């Protein structure tokens, strides 16, 4: 890293806490949460917006953190990663359903998949199979062939009804 590059101080809310950090002009939110905050659940797959491994919630909505510049964050921005949802009832239900359905193989895509799943079930607790596929269209999995992931989302939704 070039040390004479300009460092920028930013403030924002990360997983429910107001935080401050310093970033370089070209640093993405993905690099920042992994390096500055050591939150490594969020993964880098393609770095180009195509695979969804880096999905996080930005002001409540899923985005690709590999394309968002950290320097653009402002104090009113809220970022939530999988770690921030560890105690969340819905996220726990989703994670359990993924495990029960055997939807996790290497696991690399899973933090991103579960973020997309979380966002879907938050606004649409009883999605159809088409809605599930549509919501996960920005997440690529090299291992599972998607069937089990779709089944896991359906199961998480079904268990939520009880």
């Amino acid at each position: 890293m070039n040390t004479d590059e300009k460092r920028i101080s930013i403030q924002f809310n990360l997983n429910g806490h107001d935080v401050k950090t310093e970033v370089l002009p070209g640093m993405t939110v993905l690099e920042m949460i992994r390096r500055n905050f050591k939150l490594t659940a969020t993964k880098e797959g393609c770095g180009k917006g195509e695979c969804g491994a880096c999905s996080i919630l930005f002001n409540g909505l899923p985005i690709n953190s590999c394309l968002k510049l950290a320097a653009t964050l402002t104090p009113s921005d809220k970022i939530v990663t999988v770690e921030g949802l560890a105690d969340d009832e819905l996220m726990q239900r989703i994670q359990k359903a993924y495990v029960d359905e055997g939807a996790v193989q290497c696991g690399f895509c899973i933090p991103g998949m579960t973020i997309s799943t979380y966002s879907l079930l938050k606004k649409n607790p009883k999605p159809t199979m088409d809605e599930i596929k549509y919501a996960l269209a920005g997440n690529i999995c090299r291992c599972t062939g998607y069937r089990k992931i779709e089944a896991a989302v359906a199961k998480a939704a079904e268990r939520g009804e009880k």
Partner: protein
Amino acid sequence: MSFEFYKPSNIKEASELLKNPGYVAVVGGTDTIVKVKGGFYKALKALVDLNGLFSKEIKVEGDKCIIGSACVMNNIAHNPVIVENFPALAEAALSVAAEQIRNVATIGGNVGNSSPVGDTIPALYSLEAEVNIVGGEEKRTVPINEFITGVGRNVLQPGEMIESFAIPMRKTKGAFQKLGERKALSISKINLGLSYWNDGKPHYRIGMGAVAITVLRVTKAEEFLEAAPHPLSDETIQQAAQYAIETAKPITDIRSTKEYRKQMAGVLLKRALNAIKN
């Protein structure tokens, strides 16, 4: 690569910054950051963050619908005014990439990037949208079909930015069609926006992307359809499709061949016309 980052607090400041060579505006970043990472900007000096400077809202003002340049695809796709009156644009916005991109990708960025495959652009052509441009204190308005001048090129002068888009307020029927490798996350091989309205006589507007260096209007088909008996017959639709094929001047590139694109211009127009028939 070393470059600076600026977060101007007002439009005037942003405009001054953007007058410098090598200074690039960024909003959603879904085009810009991919290009920065890919080394596309050979002389990049600074990124200028426009977030917070322009409206993200959609509102009706008099006889126009005004879409702020910072409005993201998902908001356009689900906005009741757009869905009700400008279905071609709602469908185009919904076809962009995937959920994660649609939550940050702005309409200003889609048009500002000025790619011949940008999906909202043919829809904006079909709706006769205007681009409201601001540069410091000066403002000007340019029709969308005069805004883009080539691949990645437009009429913006250094220091100028897109403030908003204005669409004549009228109820249109419309459709957006695109062909890509798959439904989600694929850049169009070819795309087409169709809008239709009737104010005593029928009006058709057809914008077609990825078939030339900028989006083309298929005026020959538009005039033919306007003069044809309604409801449109299959033969009429077939003839209009033929005009779309004749109008298309595509090239062969990594995404498709020129022969395929030309044929598909006809197919997409046929699909769009059938989609609005009831």
